[in-house]
């Protein structure tokens, strides 16, 4: 992972959840995955921290630090959605985002 910096669609593979504060989830519209769009992670001040393109299953994954975060979804057609989420080391926060 050290020689790249880009965000793969859906987020990087989860290799070791043990020491990570993971925020992940899926974006769906009327039950169908939203495969074109972006998930943005904002910190508790509302500042941008990271972004990944959604995966084919509408999925996203971030490796955050412990604390409170906001997950914002952007998709074609002016679609926006937001959820507040709390992250902790060794835990996976799972979100289902309906747009």
């Amino acid at each position, binding site marked *: 992972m050290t*020689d790249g910096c880009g*965000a793969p669609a859906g987020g990087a593979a989860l*290799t070791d959840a043990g020491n990570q504060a993971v925020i992940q989830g899926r974006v769906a519209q009327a039950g169908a995955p939203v495969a074109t769009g972006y998930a943005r992670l904002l910190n508790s001040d509302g500042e941008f921290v990271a972004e990944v393109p959604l995966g084919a299953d509408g999925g996203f994954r971030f490796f955050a630090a412990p604390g409170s975060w906001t997950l914002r979804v952007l998709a074609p057609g002016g679609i926006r959605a937001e959820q507040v989420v709390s992250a902790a080391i060794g835990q996976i926060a799972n979100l289902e985002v309906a747009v």
Partner: protein
Amino acid sequence: MSRSDVLVDADWVEAHNGEDGLVLVEVDEDTAAYGKGHIRNAVKIDWKQDLQDPVRRDFVDKDGFAALLSARGISNDDTVVLYGGNNNWFAAYAYWYFRVYGHRNVKLLDGGRKRWELDSRELVTEVPQRAATSYTAADQDSSIRAFRDEVVAAIGRDNLIDVRSPDEFAGRLLAPAHLPQEQAQRGGHIPTARNVPWSKAAEEDGTFKSDDALRTLYGDAGVDFASDTIAYCRIGERSAHTWFVMHELLGQPNVKNYDGSWTEYGSLVGVPIKTGDES
């Protein structure tokens, strides 16, 4: 140089796509992105496979760059419009790289792939066939590329802009939050560096903010526009985005991108490191 010389919008690309002398190039690190769909007539450059030396940590050399552009069917006189994912990070890196090797006419698509997708514009999977050319690359332009000794010498003297996220700047994270946090190097930043995350220069859709907003952003962060500037991040592509803003959009004369960036600096023996939120 003005904004219109270095930046085009999606309407411009749709109006001019297919014209002789114009080459669209998608630049990504995610090798799958281009294959899933790209702007019609766009060729692909892979940030890692095509632009990095496979053995040494460095660019491909002048001959390698010439061979790459020749194979992609790009001529010295062509106008190259670059775009990509990740808010144009890798496209901005390629822009800077094309400039390092002296390509004259290169532009970025404002907003890159993201704005294009959010606008629901056409993406195709058909790969264009372009006849090979005989591209000639110039010697590297060292006036826009910084190496580690210059960076150490610039501490407390020039503008150092750390464009990573605040948590990376402070040493709380060692990588962007879309990547696992596991590395051996030290965390923190170069002393006296100002933290102006690349993302503050971009709107939510990936387009660049206005020149006035950008000047205010860097001015408020303590950047002295009368001094030389070095931008860095983790591996030099987010800082290429900021180099583009400072050098190409704002027209600052002496701006360098330090592509060694934190993966080099944070592994050097004996250099000063600061942790925490303060410069």
